[in-house]
């Protein structure tokens, strides 16, 4: 069953799902949980020696990204790097496999 988080459907997702969505490792997600930099729900432990299980509010996870990355600075750096490489929007469209509209 797909987890669709929209304004109408909040979702609590698993650590592996959060990692797959953001293309990071599950260790990264666990590290963020350990320092409290993403919201989480810790489920009761099911037995001795078992790793704690968590659920993550998807909307809260998305909102936490600005504290786990410096997105404003990273966007600036991406733009600088692209300029340095001579990549403008049209070239970026082509690199991604598309072509700009004739009227653009």
């Amino acid at each position, binding site marked *: 069953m797909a987890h669709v988080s*929209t304004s109408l459907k909040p979702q609590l997702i698993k650590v592996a799902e959060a990692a797959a969505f953001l293309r990071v490792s599950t260790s990264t997600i666990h590290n963020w949980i350990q320092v409290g930099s993403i919201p989480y729900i810790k489920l009761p432990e099911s037995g001795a020696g078992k790793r704690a299980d968590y659920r993550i509010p998807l*909307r809260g996870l998305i909102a936490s990204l600005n504290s786990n990355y410096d997105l404003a600075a990273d966007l600036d750096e991406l733009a600088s790097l692209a300029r340095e490489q001579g990549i403008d929007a049209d070239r970026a469209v082509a690199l991604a496999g598309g072509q700009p*509209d004739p009227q653009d």
Partner: protein
Amino acid sequence: MQLVVADTTVLFPGLIDPDSLYRKLLVVFAWGKLHADLRAVTEEQAEIDRLLARTPGTQQGGHPDPGQLEAQVRQRIALIEDHLPAQTPKDFGLVVSPPITQEVLDITIGDRSALGGRSPELAHAAVASAAAVSTAQIVDDFDDVPHYTEGRDRKDDPIIHTAVLAGAEWILSQDKKHIALDHRKPTIYADPHTRRQHKAVSLGYFLNEVLCSGIHFSVDDLKSIDGNFLALAVQSTGCVNAEPK
């Protein structure tokens, strides 16, 4: 809320070129996301409360909690609203999914990109930025994707499947060979189960016929948006998250 799935032919130029229409469109999506978040925070806390009540021993932790999220969102809206055209639409929301975040990662550091391999950290930040401006997120279920493009490009089917799963009305793509086949009219894809239709269109069509087609918000209004406001929409407000990075 009109949900829009955009592939990397739209997302990637928006992420790397702050002066482009692609970036200004991302600002509009970020604006829509902030207003959707404002409506959604109480529902997310209700979902958490249900889990806490259902399973004794569960604990809520980390930041931001829904209360903090609401404060962050209100602060971001206050930071941006004076700088946007008065009638900037609030009802368009971007959808992202694992196939899209993977494509952003690939195009940012993969072989096709002139940024190739330069900075894996920046590639992950590009993924996070795309996610940060999204209103809706699809988290799984891409194992069995129907052949929407009828074999034109199997890699593009998950993009259309994202729209089907999200119930998104629009698929925005500059890929004229495989997804949005005609820049003058929508290419229609249908959910095989519900027959609900999803319209794949080019950027030009979307701007002229959908986003800027009303009397209150024109293409010139869109052009007047400073693409750097995207940073304002996603940056840390520093007001409620006391935890270290």
